[in-house]
């Protein structure tokens, strides 16, 4: 296929995708798990954006939520615990034609994979990163995670977590080149969907923390917010996550946050009296490493050959 464009195959009919085109297998999550909501939103997003299944890659680490790629009929990479971000970066580096989604959990991203989290945000390569945060290790059966609240009892800390939870939002907002930081909840599908859609359309790395409960190990973690939506603070802004009537009807407690104001974003992200959801930061102008890594893409064999030969000849005797 030398010299032919990647999309050279003539399309006899325009392809139209429906939800089923993105469905694969039967999810093996526990009933009541928030992962179902994320899966549904992602499929809906793919359908609405008419993403070519073969041009879409869902990358994950290890954990309950990292099973997600198995349930989407696109390409998928279910790799190692804590390492989905380097893999996704490597996929993105030389394939700007692919849509890259990353599914990671609070253990995967904020514990074993922390280093990659910081650097992937710094690289700001175009991809949608979904942190499915249920504040507990589920697959290994109830161990404290970095986002477990202080005092919460687990199998590794039966007397309760000793330290306060790490805040993934303030961490992400502090990273140079952070370009899209949002938070949403699994129990409001409309806000979840709207957030993922904005994230997917963002030209850079979009980091979305999705607050979830684990039906087995942290069933009541968000009771406080679910029972009384006024404990949730909806961040609004013309340039924020669009909120439809369904969302506005539920979340009455609102605050406007300019997503270009990083200091204000940090302040909101650190709040503990309410659960802020919405867009904290959006900077489509941030530096992007994937624009650097794609240099020389598609170079002809003749040119490569000539360059290699010229490099060898620098050592001629």
């Amino acid at each position, binding site marked *: 296929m030398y010299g032919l464009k990647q999309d050279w195959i003539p399309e006899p009919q325009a392809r139209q995708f429906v939800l089923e085109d993105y469905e694969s297998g039967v999810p093996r999550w526990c009933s009541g798990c928030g992962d179902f909501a994320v899966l549904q939103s992602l499929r809906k997003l793919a359908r609405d954006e008419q993403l070519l299944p*073969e041009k879409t890659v869902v990358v994950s680490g290890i954990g309950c939520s990292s099973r997600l790629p198995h349930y989407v009929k696109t390409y998928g990479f279910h790799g190692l615990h804590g390492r989905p971000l380097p893999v996704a970066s*490597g996929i993105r580096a030389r394939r700007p034609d692919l849509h890259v989604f990353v599914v990671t959990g609070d253990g995967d991203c904020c514990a074993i994979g922390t280093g990659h989290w910081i650097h992937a945000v710094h690289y700001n390569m175009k991809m949608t990163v979904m942190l499915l945060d249920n504040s507990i290790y589920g697959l290994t059966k109830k161990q404290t995670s970095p986002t477990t609240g202080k005092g919460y009892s687990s199998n590794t800390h039966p007397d309760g977590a000793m330290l306060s939870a790490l805040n993934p939002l303030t961490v992400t907002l502090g990273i140079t080149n952070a370009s899209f930081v949002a938070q949403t909840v699994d129990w409001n599908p409309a806000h979840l969907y709207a957030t993922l859609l904005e994230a997917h359309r963002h030209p850079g790395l979009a980091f979305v923390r999705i607050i979830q409960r684990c039906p087995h190990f942290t069933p009541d973690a968000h009771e406080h917010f679910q029972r009384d939506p006024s404990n949730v603070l909806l961040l609004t802004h013309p340039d924020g996550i669009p909120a439809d009537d369904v969302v506005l009807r539920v979340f009455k407690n609102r605050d406007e946050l300019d997503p270009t104001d990083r200091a204000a974003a940090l302040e909101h992200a650190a709040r503990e009296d309410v659960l802020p959801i919405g867009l904290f930061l959006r900077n489509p102008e941030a530096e992007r490493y994937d624009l650097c890594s794609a240099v020389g893409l598609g170079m002809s064999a003749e040119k490569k050959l000539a360059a290699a030969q010229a490099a060898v000849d620098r050592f001629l005797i």
Partner: protein
Amino acid sequence: MTAHGRLSTSLPVVSGDKVSRPRAGESLVDPPAGEAVDRPPSGEPRVEVVDQHVVEFVSDSGEGAQSAGQMFGTVSAKMGNGVWTLEIIPAEIEPPPRTKASCSGNRVRIGKGPVTNMGETADVVVAFNEQVLYSRIDDGALRAGSLIFLDNKWAADPDPGIRESYARALEDFGSRGYLVQEVPMHEQCLRIVPDPRRGKNMWAVGLLCAVYQLDVDRVRFEIEAKFGRKGRKVVDANRALARAGYEWALENVGVRYRVPAEPVDETMVVMNGNQAMALGIMAAGIEVCSMYPITPATSVSHFLARSFAAAGGFVHQAEDEIAAIGFALGASYAGKTPVTLTSGPGLALKTEFIGLAVMAELPLVIVVVQRGGPSTGLPTRVEQGDLLAALHASPGDAPKIVMAPTSIGECFHFMITARQLAETFRTPVMVLSDANLATGQQPFERPEVRQEWLAPPVDQSRWQAAVEPYDWDPETGISQRPVPGQRDGQYVLTGLTHDSASRVAYDAATNQRTATLRSRKLATLRRSLKPPEVYGDPEGDLLVVCWGSTRGAVEEAIDGLRQDGENVSSLCLRFLSPLEPGLEEIFRRFRQVMTVELNYSDDPEDPHVDEGGRRYSQLAFLLRAATLVDVDCWSRVPGIPLSPSRIKEVLRQRLKGE
């Protein structure tokens, strides 16, 4: 790449009357400015013709003796001589000056024909101070009769302590039988540059150009090539320095050597192993090099950082060793077979991803430039200690291809083979180099880069929906892989046990079958490998088996022993996994078989060591298990390459012991 160097190991005789020996008290006298220290006797010096010589440049770290040696080596190679260089690298960037720890430099062995190893003790040394020489003494690099050109600036140092230690060292060198000629390096350079610490090295090159009658024009050319980027002024200053050293030597040095060059018909190139690997990566059409800095592998990426873009490639410096291989595997999954570079400690960190690459069948080239271990070990020094770690990288059964180049030319060519094997067998391929190959310069036949070496473009044609993503051929274990972008090829790669559709499967039958198929790929590859060639007679009293960079020294030792009438041969392995076939049959034709390696093994005489508990060197361990032949070993971990004479001595004892 099977040209073997045959070198005479006889050492040249330095004519003592042409060289000044320090007399007590003499070196303390400050020579009158501008006057030569030692005038040669009248008349032209006699030129001594030698088959080979070992030359060293040593200085404090930062004074440039390394680049002086590289330049001397390059010019010699360009004049048609065989060359092997060995870098002498301090572990720190700025160790305290005038100490053993500060010793930095380059050893250059030049020969009439091809040179494959660092040789024996030094014939001629240029030393920028006397203290760094003690580091070379510790490494056994000098002998009675070694000729040393030593900067005399320390004789007149304002610090009486330095003056005294200089005088003491001169006396000590005399008693060791070294032939020392003091040279006014510092003072001469001061006439040209304000800081002779940046300049002495080119003066030293000039000095040895006169002694070895090298082509001065070539030196001028190399200076232009090396310093051209820094501007005209720097080039001119360095040329003036080299000229000054050259002219000073013509006037004041009474020895001349010539290592005649045997002309070769082929066009040659000269470079070190890391440069060769970098060029091999480009010639293989690899587009992604993902790495994290680690000595002694990093310089591969330094070269690529400047040249890769012209060939459409990109160097990713990752945040850590794990991310480096993770990024590479992402690129691999997306269709580009990448390379990742590392050394021992980085290999340790990469093992989980190596397991994933094996399990999920992702092509990847992993270069491991070995250094001393375990742990941080000897970062700048050589060892062959990662063979078993490479073979067994990753828990569980993780069969992978492991190859080891044995020359600089092979460092180049193995990269092309490695990429092709990785893609054909859908597996990681590890290429084990070492610190000796990494920095050693050697000429080899200029490769003509061919289009078929280049990776093909990523296949984006439609996948046949009926074909599963792991459509294993039961005979070979080989399967084709769909790449994102290929319509109807969608699958989810997983590190979990999976069936041919890449569906997670925990059942006994699938796990057994898929493990078998992964292993079968190695068996298939082994069927296509040729039995290794024996160096020497195909049968005899003793067969020495080696791998990697020790080949040159082993073969030179074998040459020497065979000249002495001993019935010995050697064999060098380039494929360690799968092992090259036919070994058992070859081994059975020798009365004794042993390996010689640069890694650790117990000596049978060590306290508490009995035969059942003796820990063998790594290749010996492997060969014993694979062939059931009683393969013995001799191995050491000195951090420096083995010399032919040391190997010869060991083999001679082994032959006597029977």
